[in-house]
Every structure is written in structure tokens, then in C-alpha cells.
């Protein structure tokens, strides 16, 4: 009895103490956390590795110079424009002169800033007093910011906090390192960053800067292929760690969740990782969510054309998972096949996670009743569905089947087995076997920044990432962001709107074709059709067989987002698609035009 009572005292004490400890920790942690700069300096001083006040001062001075120079440049540019309008050649020359001066001034200021930073670094080691000063400066009450926390307009941005969201668990967990490597490579290549560890992408990068503004990788999020986890990690990265820009996520449902989050958080910017859901840009339409890759329908461009015009299918049946990604994927095929003059006579959508596909496969027409089948079943269902097809309809003949991107991923089509040899597949818009300079250059870039990029937790050569569309998409999306930042001089002091404007106008001269964004901020990109063959060693491989230029998300006007693709949308109708008949054959990686 006595023990119990004593313990209950302990208990009360413990709860009180824990509450106090929590309160204390939370309070002590960040006074004035909303102010991004104050939080930054607090975090920096706490970590003992950030700038001292001295460095801050020097950098600020330099940045001010840079801003001054930029203003001059802007003035000069305005003059130039005016002069051009007036057709006064002398004025043009003068203005150009002024512009050049301003630019060089800006250059100077930039180098000055760099020098100042260097000085600051030395000073940091030398002057302990500055540390105290820094603490004092940090502790000084910051001006009460307006409730929604955009950075105060007057202060120049000293660094931009970036976060990456990818999947380290779930079905795509194995790709985690490659995804991050894509971003790191982009910053190393295009923003002068140093790769921290050439065998471990998760170590991140440092010293990235654009126009003198440091880009700091503050967090890597780990989701698991579910919307809920993606949202949780997004909130952790944006609200707890305080990132301003996020690259990610990986999969479709995650990206819908993130795009919705983006819509609700207009002071931040989001760039897709590698997800291909149509809804995340076409339905949600967040002004601050960008995607430098295509969606599920775009990724199938070229297949319908080939089916009708090369393979001579007049009728086709489609089978796909019963959810939005597969609907979008089959919609791409249906729209193009019908546009080319074919007829889709059967659409079967077994529910996701179906245990026994036989009942659904029965609904497909027989092998002599239809010319071909298009498959958009993914995940655990694909092979069982094909097995059920064999059981019910007959042997699988490659010529009679086509698949969406799943058939284009080596791991997946190898799991399907050699029976699908000769079938065509959609893709992600990459074509690793393409023999072009740009492709070779892209491959060289990867190898120049990484020695190893682990896959599934195990070491793997960096070169393997070249074949991986996830890597490419993370790379392209990060690159698009960098170009956008460059266009505004990485100046977010006026809020993020200028950055959005800039990113919208970015055009990437990417490894497998030019990428620009449409009005819904999704990529207009080149697509490739693959075909599965068995190489001399008996390994299944995919070779690129056709090139389809500049496919957009509306799919030549087929989709508007309303209604979205569904079990029976789009209907099968003859339409005019710009790329039908314009696909370029590719033989041995060489475009035949």
C-alpha cells in the first residue's frame, strides 16, 4: 500500500517534470521561430558551425553591394530597352556599355562577398568575442513580423533552404539513394555544389550557391508511397525544419497530397520528384507546384500509333488497375489508338490488390476476337494477371501485347519473363540506349560526381543510375528549379512569386530532349517507345524504337482535367493528334530522320 502511494507521488512528479522538460526544451529552442532569418541564425549558432555575426555583417555588406549593382544593371537594361524602342543606336551603345559596367560591378560585388565570407571564416576561428556578439545579435528581439511569415522585403536573402522528399520505405524504397543522387548531381552540375560523399548521396551537398546565395540542403524526407506519410514528411521538412523549397515526392498519390499542400502554402515552392499523376497538376493546379516530367498518359505517347499503323491492330482490348493512374495510362493509349483509327472494344479494370484475376481476365475478348491487348496492370498484380490470361485465353505472343511504363522498367519486364519478348512498351521519357552526345554527356555527368550510388541499400555503380528514370526525373526537376532560381538571381526577398514565374519559363535542354512547362506547370517533353528483346546473353532488354516529339499533358487536347480519365473516359473517337504519323523510328539508338 505504502509503495503504491509513494509511486503515485513519483508518478505525479514524473508527469510534471516531463511536461516541464518538454516546455523548457520547446521554449528554449527558438524564440521567434517564425522569422526565418532569426531561426536560421539561432540554428546556426547552436550548431556551432555557422557564420558569426562578423561574417553576417560582411556577407550582408557584400550582398548589399551586389543588390546595388543589380539595381544598376536593371536600370541599364531598362535604358537599353527604351533605347531600342527609339532606335537610337548611340543610346543603345551607351546603354550596353552601362549594362556591361553594371554587370562587372555586380561580378565584383559577388567576388567581394565571397572574399568577405572567407574572411569571416578566418575571423570565426580567431575571434571568440565575435561569438558572444553573435549570440547577442541573435538574441536581440527581432521586429514583430506580420503573421503570415514571408521574409521581410528589405532584407536580402542570405541562403535558401532546400529539402528533398523521396520514398525510403514502401514499394519504391530501394530507389531512395538514386532519387537523392539525382538532386545532388543537379546541384553539383548546375549550382557549383560539392558532393559531400561520392559514394553516399544522402550525405548531401555543400557550397551550392546561385548568384551568391547559398542553397542549403536542410532535410531529406522519407515517405513510404502513401499520401499520409508524404504529407507528414512534407510538414516535417517545411514546418519543423523550415525548408522553403522542396523537391519531391516520388509517387502519384503522394504528389497529389503534396500539390494540395502546396496550394495551401503559398509562401513555399514545390518541384516534383518523379511522380506521374495527372491530377497533381491538371486537377489541383497549385501555382507553386512544378513538374519537369510527364504524366501517365504522356508516357504512353506513340504506342497507339504503332499499334494501329505498324502492327496493324484494328481492334484492341485494354486491361488496367482500377484507379486513377492506370485510367490515365490507358487513356493515353486509347486516345491515340482511336485517334489513329483503331477501335477499343473492351476495357477491363480489375480492382487493385485483386487476389484472383481469373474472373476479370475472363471478361477480355479471346485471342482470335481482338487484334491486341494493352496492359496497365502494375505492382503485385501484373504477373498474376498475365498468368490468368494464359490460363484462360492462350499463350502470350509478344506481337499481340503492349504495356505501359511498367513493361519498360527492366526489373519489371524481367519479372514478367521472356514470354513478352517483342512487345512494345511505354516509358518515362528516357531512352538510355540513345546514341546522342547529350545522352553521353548526361551519363558522364553522373559518373563525374558519384563513384557509387547505392540501390536498395547495397552499393552499386553510379553508372547504373543513368538507366533509371527516377534518377533522371529528380535530376531534371532539380535542374529546372536551379534554372528558375538563376533567372531571378536566387532572390526570394520579394516572396516566391517571381520564382514561380521564372520556373514556368524555364526550358531545359535535357539529355533526352527539350523540356518546357505548360500552363499547368507540367512538362511538355519528348517521349520514346521501347521494345523488349532478348540479347545474345539471354538477358531481356528494352531498346528504344520510336521517338515522339513534344508531347503535352492535354495529350493534344484530349484531357482538360474535367472529366478526368476514368473507366470510360476518353471515349474512342477519331481525332487529330499532332504526333500521329510523326514518330521517328529509332534503330540501334540512332534517330532515323
Amino acid at each position: 500500500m505504502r509503495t503504491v502511494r509513494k509511486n503515485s507521488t513519483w508518478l505525479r512528479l514524473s508527469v510534471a517534470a516531463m511536461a516541464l522538460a518538454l516546455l523548457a526544451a520547446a521554449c528554449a529552442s527558438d524564440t521567434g521561430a517564425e522569422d526565418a532569418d532569426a531561426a536560421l541564425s539561432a540554428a546556426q549558432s547552436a550548431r556551432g558551425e555557422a557564420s558569426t555575426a562578423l561574417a553576417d555583417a560582411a556577407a550582408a555588406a557584400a550582398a548589399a553591394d551586389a543588390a546595388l549593382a543589380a539595381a544598376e544593371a536593371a536600370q541599364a537594361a531598362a535604358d537599353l530597352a527604351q533605347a531600342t524602342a527609339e532606335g537610337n543606336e548611340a543610346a543603345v551603345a551607351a546603354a550596353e556599355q552601362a549594362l556591361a559596367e553594371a554587370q562587372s560591378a555586380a561580378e565584383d560585388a559577388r567576388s567581394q562577398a565571397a572574399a568577405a565570407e572567407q574572411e569571416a571564416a578566418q575571423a570565426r576561428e580567431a575571434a571568440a568575442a565575435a561569438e558572444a556578439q553573435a549570440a547577442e545579435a541573435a538574441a536581440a528581439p527581432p521586429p514583430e513580423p506580420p503573421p503570415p511569415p514571408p521574409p521581410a522585403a528589405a532584407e536580402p536573402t542570405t541562403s535558401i533552404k532546400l529539402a528533398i522528399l523521396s520514398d525510403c520505405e514502401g514499394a519504391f524504397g530501394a530507389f531512395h539513394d538514386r532519387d537523392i543522387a539525382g538532386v545532388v548531381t543537379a546541384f553539383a552540375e548546375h549550382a557549383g555544389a560539392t558532393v559531400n560523399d561520392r559514394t553516399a548521396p544522402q550525405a548531401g551537398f555543400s557550397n551550392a550557391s546561385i548568384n551568391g546565395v547559398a542553397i542549403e540542403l536542410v532535410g531529406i524526407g522519407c515517405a513510404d508511397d502513401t499520401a499520409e506519410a508524404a504529407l507528414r514528411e512534407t510538414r516535417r521538412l517545411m514546418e519543423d525544419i523550415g525548408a522553403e523549397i522542396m523537391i519531391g515526392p516520388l509517387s502519384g498519390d503522394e504528389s497529389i497530397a503534396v500539390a494540395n499542400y502546396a496550394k495551401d502554402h503559398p509562401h513555399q515552392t514545390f518541384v516534383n520528384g518523379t511522380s506521374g499523376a495527372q491530377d497533381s497538376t491538371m486537377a489541383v493546379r497549385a501555382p507553386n507546384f512544378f513538374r519537369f516530367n510527364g504524366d501517365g498518359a504522356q508516357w504512353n505517347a506513340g504506342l497507339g500509333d504503332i499499334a494501329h499503323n505498324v502492327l496493324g491492330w484494328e481492334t484492341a482490348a485494354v486491361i488496367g488497375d482500377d484507379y486513377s493512374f492506370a485510367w490515365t495510362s490507358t487513356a493515353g493509349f486509347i486516345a491515340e489508338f482511336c485517334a489513329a483509327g483503331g477501335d477499343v472494344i473492351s476495357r477491363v479494370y480489375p480492382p487493385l490488390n485483386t487476389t484472383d484475376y481469373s474472373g476479370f481476365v475472363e471478361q477480355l475478348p479471346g485471342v482470335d476476337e481482338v487484334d491486341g491487348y494493352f496492359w496497365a496492370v502494375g505492382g503485385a498484380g501484373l504477373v498474376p494477371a498475365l498468368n490468368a490470361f494464359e490460363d484462360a485465353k492462350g499463350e502470350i505472343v509478344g506481337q499481340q501485347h503492349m504495356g505501359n511504363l511498367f513493361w519498360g522498367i527492366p526489373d519489371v519486364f524481367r519479372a514478367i519473363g521472356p514470354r513478352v519478348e517483342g512487345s512494345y512498351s511505354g516509358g518515362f521519357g528516357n531512352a538510355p540506349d540513345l546514341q546522342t552526345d547529350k545522352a553521353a554527356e548526361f551519363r558522364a555527368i553522373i559518373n563525374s560526381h558519384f563513384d557509387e550510388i547505392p540501390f536498395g541499400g547495397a552499393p552499386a555503380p553510379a553508372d547504373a543510375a543513368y538507366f533509371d528514370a527516377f534518377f533522371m526525373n529528380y535530376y531534371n526537376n532539380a535542374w529546372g528549379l536551379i534554372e528558375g532560381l538563376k533567372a531571378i538571381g536566387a532572390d526570394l526577398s520579394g516572396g516566391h512569386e517571381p520564382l514561380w514565374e521564372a520556373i514556368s519559363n524555364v526550358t531545359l535542354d535535357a539529355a533526352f530532349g527539350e523540356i518546357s512547362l505548360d500552363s499547368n506547370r507540367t512538362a511538355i517533353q519528348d517521349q520514346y517507345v521501347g521494345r523488349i528483346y532478348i540479347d545474345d546473353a539471354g538477358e531481356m532488354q528494352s531498346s528504344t524504337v520510336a521517338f515522339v516529339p513534344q508531347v503535352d499533358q492535354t495529350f493534344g487536347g484530349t484531357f482538360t482535367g474535367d472529366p478526368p480519365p476514368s473507366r470510360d473516359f476518353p471515349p474512342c473517337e477519331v481525332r487529330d493528334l499532332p504526333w500521329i504519323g510523326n514518330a521517328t523510328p529509332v534503330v540501334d539508338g540512332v534517330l532515323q530522320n
Partner: protein
Amino acid sequence: MILTRLRGDPGETPGGVGSGDYARNTRKLAAALFVALVLVGVFQAITPGVFRHYFVDVVMTRSLLFGVAAASIVFLSAFGGMISLAQTLMYGVCAFTVGNAVTTGGSKGLNLGWNPWVGVALGIGVTTALGFVMGLIASRSSGLYYLMITLAYGVIGFYFFGQVTVLSGFGGVNQVRAPAFIGEPTDATNPERLFFTVLVVSVVVYLLLRYVSRTPFGLALQGVRDDPVRMNSLGFNVAMHRTWAFTLAAFIASLGGVLYVWEQRAISPTTISLVGILNLLIMAIIGGVLVLEGAWLGAFIYIALENYVRNVVFLNNWIEEARFRTLAGAIVLVLVLACPDGVVGLRKVRGAVTLSLIGAAVWGTVGGLQEGDRGAIAGVIVGAVAGIGAAGLVGWLAGHRDTARGVWSRLLATGRPGQVPARN
């Protein structure tokens, strides 16, 4: 019976549940817990900006709302003797109903575009009605059978929402609006409104369930828990008591669902998948499935771990290798094996508080030095939890100290058997 078995030692006095010193101490714990929560809320209210928003807006809010959902599990097990794994489905059903009712387009589902309050009423109504039907179907079963049936409900429900694309489909329902007083998430002026709402609902739910346990229905339900056969022969309709209890639990879970969908602004089937079902169960287990207050405590510990464990450098590296869910599974394993009463049961263990305070201080310092403020918070929380875990192990060992002593004595004793103290 099944519950007394959960509590471990078969020799222990059967069913000290909801009574005696155990209950009185639990009351005190509850009081302390709620005082702490209210303090957090008040503190947040009077000193805007002092508190890190994330801690309140995300960690505390989510802890409380999952606490509400977990409380429905705990209510059923503590007062009705039924372990239900269908509670995740229940809050999911409510969230999906609300989502379908209030969204206006650009999302999956019916997009009815109704007033948010109508949606809330509909969601709660539908869930409660469904709870009644499902409760009725399962009501003549008990024990493990009940657990399995409700698990089957839960998993079937996950497939239902994943496959019935009219209502949701795999991607779920997005852009769910909350009523105006919660405010839009873009409107950052008062983000803690949701926190206060959740806090109020939590307190109301807690008081409600406490109240219900003292009503004729609540007492009869506890009778059903302790001895359904006797209840039957005393004139009670045991099946209907189980049914109504399940209905009430569905109602409570539906409140959690409303709060969830207000917080997430979205709901997808993966939320209520087997993983989601087990997560809620884990929260209830951490808190101790027989103690109502434990629901919120367990939810807090789980959510805090989920949010902060990655901020602790050394742990993060380990998790990258071994995954978070492995950690969660290991925690459950240790708790179930060593500490069946959950964390609230630790008050029996001398030194639990000290250990958790030491853990919090040490890890908090380490985390602070390594990672700054976030590291400090994370360290405090993770350290406290680790301390609790250590205490649990110590307590478990202490519970088996006679065995241990026996082994030692046998090892050390020199030809003097029978000296082993056989105290029990």
C-alpha cells in the same frame, strides 16, 4: 478473462481493472496528463510565437486526435472486454464520408459540396450507424474471435475504399474543407485553432467515456466484460450491450475521423490499411489497452517518435538501415513482453521517472549539441521514451527477480540448496 491474461502473471489478482489503487492512481495520472495538455494549450495561447508551431500544430494536434481514435479501442477493451481492430476503419469511414460530402471538385469521390457541418453530421451519423450494424454482426462473438472479426472488417474496409472508385479509389479524397472557424491552412494567423478544437474534443471524449462508465449502461458493460454468462442469466442482453458499446466506440472514432480529415485535408485508403490499423493498436498498447488516459499518452509517444526520431542523428542512421516500422515493431514487442500494462503501468516500476528524466536530459543535451533546437526536442522525447523502455525492462526483470535470484543463488551457492528465498 482474456484481458486479465494480457496483464501477465496469471497469479496476479484477477481483474484489478477499473478499481482499487490501480484505478485511483490512474485517475491521478489522467489528471496530471490533462493538466499538462491544458498548460501546453494555455501557454501556446498567451505566448504566441514562443512555442515552436510544429510541435503544437502537428505533433500535439495529431497526438490528441489519434488519442481520440485510440480511446475508442481502449474504451472497448477496458470497459467491454473487446479488442477491436476496426476502429481505424471507423475513423476512416467518417473521414471518407466527410470528404465525399464537402469537396467541391477536382478530387475523387462524390464531390457533393455540402456545408462542412452537414458533412460532419453525416460522417458521424454514417459511421455510428455502420458501427451499429458491424457491432451487431460481431456481437455474439468474444475474445480472440472478436479481434479477428474486427480485423477482417478493417482490412475489408481498406479494400472497399481502395476499390470502390465512386467513393474514393486508391488515391483518396483530397481538398477537404474544414469549417470556417478552423480557418484555411493558407491563413497562418491562427494555426492553433485546430489544436484547441482537438484539445476540447479530447477532453470532452475523455469525460464522456468516464461518465458513461458510471451509468447503468456502462456498469452493465463492465459486467459483460467480467462475466457475460452471468450477465445473461441476470437478465441482460449481452449481445446488445456489445453492440451498443461498439456503436459508441464507432461514434468516438468518428470524432477522431472528423478531426483527422480537418487536419490532413485529405483521406486515402492507405491511411486505413493494415499498417494504419496496427499503428492505432500500437498507440493503444503503448498506453496500455486497459487505461483510458493511456490512449492519449500512447498516441503522443508514437507520434513524437514518428516525428522526432529522425532528428536524432545516431538513430536516424540506424533507421535508414533498419526502417522505422522495425523500430515500432520492436517497441511493441518489448512492451508486450516486458510491460503489458503499457507505459501507464510503469508507475509500478521504481525509478521509471528517474530513468526517463535522465534519458531525456542526456539525449536532449546530445541532440542539442549535434542538431540544435530540433535535436534538443527530439533528444528529450526520444530520451524520455528510451528511459521508459529501460525502466520497463528493469521492471520486468524485477518482476522476475525471484527467478533471477534463484539462478544466481544456484550459481553462487556452494552446496546449500534450499536457501533460495521463495517469496512471491
